[in-house]
């Protein structure tokens, strides 16, 4: 019951008027950036990092939590009304959601997405509060070799499993690892990849890389594709649901949550798989099979719940192990570091109040989102009329301000531009951004764990395989890498046929737009 006491303390901390204000700001900002395609919660948190230097850590994290969940809500609004999924996790929502909206049921689709997200987010946060402390207690007992194995697993999973192309993921990952190498070697004191520039010997600040890749890269990309035929937005009133909608929605919500949370909590992360599994399940179990493909409410309720539950799940490895598995978690981890808080298994012991305030504010943020999102949906849809030049001028301004504020060094602005161009190139050639950011964050920590393990083992590589947890993780990693091959060799089951079918559907959609 110790956890419950902490949670109550967290609520006390989070419910002060000032912190509630930050929660509201975070939630509004998060929904706004979620609605606008291309601007995600990760970019927003990255842009706000330098702004929040003067704010207490708990207030900053309350705001970030609001942005994190708000981005999810906003993303579903866009995919339903515009059929432009902002991120890969809301692709599935767009399939049925947009069909529903076209059939004049936009209000119901938005309502089931919002209420489903609230339920999944609340259950997911409760599970997070229940499991994360236990996992972190277990993780503290792990030695360097196990920790190294788990971090490597996260790297491999994020690179190879998520995203469309393993090669592109690997290129992005190694770019990130290379950037992470810059600076003075912590063991020998030799400068590495500093190109003789003394300012680089401290390494490149992750905030600058995150802001450059997410904000500057995206702004340049949009600038290169500015003038486009506007999308057809579907007009919407206030979201609401009828009795039959409730009856058809509540089971998919719960099933979606059950899919989403475990997948999010794995160090592999990712919401694509659970949302897709949820969609298939609902399609199979539904009493209204004929409606699927034409706008079935189950096809919105399930995947949207899975999406949010997995978002809550990704906070489990982040808080208990210090492992980020999605972009927003990665940037939030950077925020921990910039506040001088060492992320990792000891987080729950060293900063219990901060962590429990964060968890409590997730509950509060979720509730605020439901209260704000239902009546404000028409307003959010109006946000899409903002001319992009105004929007991205503001983003670039904040990006430069933020990059300069980190160390007040003009060199950082040059780095911002260089990495911004890298971000543009990555978008141009379809490289995923997530492996790069995870590589930058985890690279140096993996190196530290590796050398620590090797030092303890007297330089013997065999010492990496001494702990049972490490061996299990390595075996899982091999299975993860070999599984697609094995599946390919086996004859196609019904499910893989479905995957192909829906992939094709999505590609056609992409070709049309």
């Amino acid at each position, binding site marked *: 019951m110790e956890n419950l006491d902490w949670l109550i303390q967290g609520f006390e901390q989070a419910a002060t008027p000032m912190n509630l204000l930050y929660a509201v700001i975070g939630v509004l900002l998060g929904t706004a950036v979620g609605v606008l395609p291309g601007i995600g919660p990760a970019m927003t948190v990255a842009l706000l990092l330098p702004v929040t230097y003067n704010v207490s850590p708990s207030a900053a994290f309350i705001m970030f939590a609001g942005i994190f969940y708000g981005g999810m809500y906003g993303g579903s609004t866009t995919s339903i009304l515009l059929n432009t999924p902002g991120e890969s996790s809301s692709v599935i929502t767009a399939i049925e959601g947009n069909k529903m909206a076209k059939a004049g049921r936009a209000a119901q689709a938005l309502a089931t997405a919002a209420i489903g997200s609230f339920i999944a987010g609340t259950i997911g946060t409760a599970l997070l509060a229940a499991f994360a402390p236990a996992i972190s207690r277990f993780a503290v007992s792990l030695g360097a070799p196990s920790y190294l194995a788990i971090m490597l697993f996260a790297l491999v999973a994020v690179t190879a499993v998520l995203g469309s192309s393993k090669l592109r993921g690997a290129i992005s990952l190694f770019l990130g690892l290379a950037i992470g190498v810059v600076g003075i070697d912590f063991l020998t004191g030799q400068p590495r990849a500093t190109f003789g520039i003394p300012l680089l010997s401290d390494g490149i600040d992750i905030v600058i890389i995150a802001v450059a890749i997410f904000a500057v890269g995206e702004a340049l990309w949009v600038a290169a594709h500015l*003038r486009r035929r*506007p999308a*057809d937005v579907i007009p919407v009133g206030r979201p609401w649901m009828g009795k039959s909608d409730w009856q058809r929605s509540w089971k998919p919500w719960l099933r979606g949550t059950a899919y989403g949370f475990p997948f999010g909590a794995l160090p592999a992360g990712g919401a694509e798989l659970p949302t897709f599994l949820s969609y298939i399940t609902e399609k199979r179990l539904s009493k209204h099979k004929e409606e699927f493909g034409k706008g079935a409410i189950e096809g919105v309720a399930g995947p949207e719940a899975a999406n949010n539950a997995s978002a809550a799940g990704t906070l489990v490895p982040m808080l208990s192990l210090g492992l980020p598995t999605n972009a927003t978690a990665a940037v939030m981890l950077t925020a921990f570091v910039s506040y001088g808080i060492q992320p990792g298994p000891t987080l729950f012991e060293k900063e219990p109040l901060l962590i429990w305030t964060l968890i409590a504010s997730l509950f509060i943020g979720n509730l605020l989102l439901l209260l704000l999102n239902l009546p404000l949906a028409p307003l959010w849809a109006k946000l899409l009329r903002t*001319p992009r030049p105004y929007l991205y001028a503001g983003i670039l301004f904040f990006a430069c301000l933020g990059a300069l504020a980190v160390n007040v060094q003009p060199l950082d602005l040059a780095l911002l531009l260089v990495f911004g161009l890298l971000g543009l190139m990555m978008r141009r050639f379809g490289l995923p951004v997530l492996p790069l950011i995870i590589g930058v964050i985890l690279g140096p920590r993996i190196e530290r764990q590796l050398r620590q393990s090797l030092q303890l083992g007297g330089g013997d590589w065999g010492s990496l395989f001494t702990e049972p947890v490490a061996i299990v993780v390595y075996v899982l990693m091999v299975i993860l890498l070999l599984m697609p091959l094995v599946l390919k060799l086996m004859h196609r089951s019904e499910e893989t046929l479905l995957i192909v079918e829906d992939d094709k559907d999505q590609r056609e959609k992409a070709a049309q737009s």
Partner: protein
Amino acid sequence: MIVIGYSADAFGRAALEHGIAEAKLRGTTLLVINSTSGEAYVDPRFARSDEVHDVERHLQECGVEFELIQPVGVDTAVELLKAMDRDDAELLVIGIRHRSPVGKLLLGSVSQHLLLECPKPILAVKPDER
């Protein structure tokens, strides 16, 4: 030829109706321009395909010879002025709306720009107050 600056709202429809009436009166052709800068994700004044079909059907029913174009990624005022530069263009029809001083400062006013810059006559109309 009469040029109509069309937007998919009451102001655009008012301009369309007055343009049609004027074209019938003068026995000339119509050029309907519905343009967008393409800078926002959504532009409600840019006619969707079903709205375009409605307008086209309406024009056909009225029996005037017409052309409807939807340029993307252009400045609306510049596009209309360019059309008015053609020798056969005789009249421009636009719908005008209220603009607050702040709105004018931030976003400018297409109507004002056209009224001041266009060398040929302009018919500025408003939708019926009902």
